[in-house]
């Protein structure tokens, strides 16, 4: 596994963040409570032990001779317990354990104030509470003076430490218990956040792929719901803009049709009269006729595209002999002698013959005008589809053109002389193929030459 500074997935990040926050919080709480419990335990032990020592000394003090001799000190030490040191000026009474239960700080604290002083130390890995106290002489009127006797004693705090450890351990367990809960919560939170995010992503993908009808139902009233609403609004406005543009194209084509009808009618008259004109007038009228026909073809293609965009294009399915239909298409356009046709007879497919004619005419016309002869049309049949391949022997399609050949008005080379096509032929051919539930693809043959492949499914349902 490679080291990454932070998990990339949103889910992983959410889980880690929630787990961290929870565990840190639980640990801090556990630590704080363990700490305060510990100091309470230690404080109470300290006070209890100090009281005990003071009580032991107070109980025996009136019985002690003063000024004390060695015996008195020994007696006092025995009364206080083991691990005790008693001093009076030069006299001292100590255990023979070797270590003295006193530190310099403790001793100076005891001497400075006539009060009991305590200190926690560790010795040999075990915690000890040192209690040091002077014994004071109180006058009957309450005045306190030092007696010069000092008592130091050490008490083992191991049992207190044991209880502190118990507390700490249970706090740690509590914090650890929070861990699986935190993971569970984080997963739940991540799911509730990620589901709308995933839906939005799917919607955005569909929008990007051109499905402008894609929407995300907003759930709840949070920021993600706001985002979903915004995405939906964006999609709606895209859809509106696209619909406006398409309606405009459709309207323009419609409006052009009436004047074109007139033009088509009168250029026919012009054509018959052209024979009697002088050469310039004849050429002009021939140009007018040719351009009118081209304009009509362009408007018809535009309207056809508009119908696909509006979803009003309908299939009129008939049982069609594919070889016959392709041959008819070529014959009607006078291409039979320019095109090599390989088609098995008897392949009957349920399709719209006009649309198949449009596809084949576009592909072959394209090959004839852009590619090099010979142009070859091959019909082949497999179990579930019929393939119609149209190939030429030219240089083929450049790699940068290939993805765009089906784009509307796409011109591979802007410097190229104008060709008779509308620029919509291949786009319309593709739409027609898809309307049949088939597909149309462009590619190059290994030896050179472009090849368009139309695939039509054989089990086309009756429309």
């Amino acid at each position: 596994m490679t080291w990454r500074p932070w998990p990339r997935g949103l889910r992983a990040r959410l889980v880690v963040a929630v787990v961290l926050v929870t565990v840190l919080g639980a640990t801090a709480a556990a630590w704080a409570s363990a700490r305060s419990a510990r100091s309470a335990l230690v404080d109470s032990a300290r006070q209890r032990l100090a009281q005990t020592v003071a009580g032991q000394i107070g109980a025996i003090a009136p019985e002690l001779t003063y000024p004390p001799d060695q015996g008195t000190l020994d007696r006092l030490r025995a009364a206080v317990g083991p691990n005790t040191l008693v001093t009076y000026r030069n006299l001292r009474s100590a255990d023979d354990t070797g270590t003295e239960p006193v530190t310099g700080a403790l001793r100076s604290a005891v001497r400075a104030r006539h009060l009991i002083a305590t200190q926690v130390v560790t010795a040999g890995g075990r915690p000890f509470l040192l209690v040091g106290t002077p014994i004071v002489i109180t006058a009957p009127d309450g005045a306190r003076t030092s007696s010069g006797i000092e008592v130091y004693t050490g008490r083992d705090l191991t049992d207190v430490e044991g209880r502190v450890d118990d507390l700490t351990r249970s706090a740690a367990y509590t914090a650890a218990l929070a861990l699986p809960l935190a993971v569970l919560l984080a997963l739940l939170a991540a799911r509730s956040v990620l589901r709308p995010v995933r839906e939005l992503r799917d919607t955005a993908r569909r929008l990007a792929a051109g499905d402008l009808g894609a929407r995300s139902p907003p759930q709840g009233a949070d920021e993600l719901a706001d985002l979903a609403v915004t995405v939906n609004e964006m999609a709606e406005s895209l859809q509106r803009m696209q619909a406006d543009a398409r309606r405009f194209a459709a309207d323009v084509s419609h409006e052009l049709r009436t004047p074109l009808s007139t033009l088509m009618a009168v250029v026919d008259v012009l054509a018959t009269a052209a024979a009697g004109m002088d050469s310039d007038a004849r050429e002009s009228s021939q140009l007018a006729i040719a351009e009118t026909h081209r304009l009509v073809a362009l408007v018809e293609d535009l309207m056809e595209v508009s119908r696909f965009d509006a979803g009003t294009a309908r299939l009129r399915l008939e049982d069609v002999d594919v070889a016959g239909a392709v041959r008819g298409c070529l014959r009607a356009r006078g291409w039979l002698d320019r095109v090599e046709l390989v088609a098995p007879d008897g392949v009957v497919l349920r399709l719209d013959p006009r649309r198949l004619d449009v596809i084949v005419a576009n592909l072959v016309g394209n090959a004839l005008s852009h590619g090099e002869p010979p142009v070859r049309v091959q019909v082949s049949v497999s179990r579930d589809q019929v393939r119609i391949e149209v190939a030429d022997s030219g240089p083929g399609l450049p790699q940068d053109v290939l993805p765009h050949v089906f784009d509307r008005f796409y011109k591979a080379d802007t410097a190229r002389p104008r060709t008779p096509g509308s620029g919509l032929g291949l786009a319309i051919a593709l739409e027609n193929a898809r309307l049949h539930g088939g597909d149309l693809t462009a590619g190059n043959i290994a030896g050179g030459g472009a090849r368009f492949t139309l695939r039509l499914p054989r089990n086309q349902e009756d429309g």
Partner: protein
Amino acid sequence: MASILLIEDDPLVRRGLQLALRGHGHDVRTADTGEDGLREVRSSAPDLVVLDLMLPGIDGVEVCRRVRAAGAVPVIILTARGDDFDVVGGLEAGADDYVVKPVQPTVLDARIRAVLRRATDAPDGVRVHRDLRIDLAALTVTAHGEPVSLTPTELRLLLTLSGAPGRVFTRQQLLEEVWEHDYLGDSRLVDNCVQRLRAKIEDDPGAPEYVQTVRGFGYRFGPL
């Protein structure tokens, strides 16, 4: 050559088509509304009506139906390309053929001629099939002794079918022979015309005796 009534509301299209058809040798009268057109059909009795379906006032489909009801004058309708709704409506109203705007006058002229052409190459004689009598010389048809008024297209369909009784004609073949369409002809023309023909000559159009349907192939003439 033929007298044609052009019903078209747009004045420039109307004039352009008039000029073009005149150039093809037709005598063209015009009308700019359905009402005018129907009046003209009654008064001048044209050989054929070219009818734009998009008309103000009475729409083209209704005009077509009234023309058909008034007599056997053939009707060719002008429709917008791909507007199947118009085509279906026009054919059901009795139109003989349709062309798509903007139309090339040569195409329209060819359709006009095809619709008007009678089976002139058929041999003279009389074909009798049960109660149906077809006089090939006079180009008249009687059923149960009653004369039947057929449009030229209906008559030509009947002659084509009855010329080879029992032979199955595909719709494509009928389109090429009767309508002189190319390989992309619209088979709905055939189906509509067959229905009109049956309505005129069959005793029970729902159970046809003469023009029989061969499912999946086309039509044939009976009885066998």
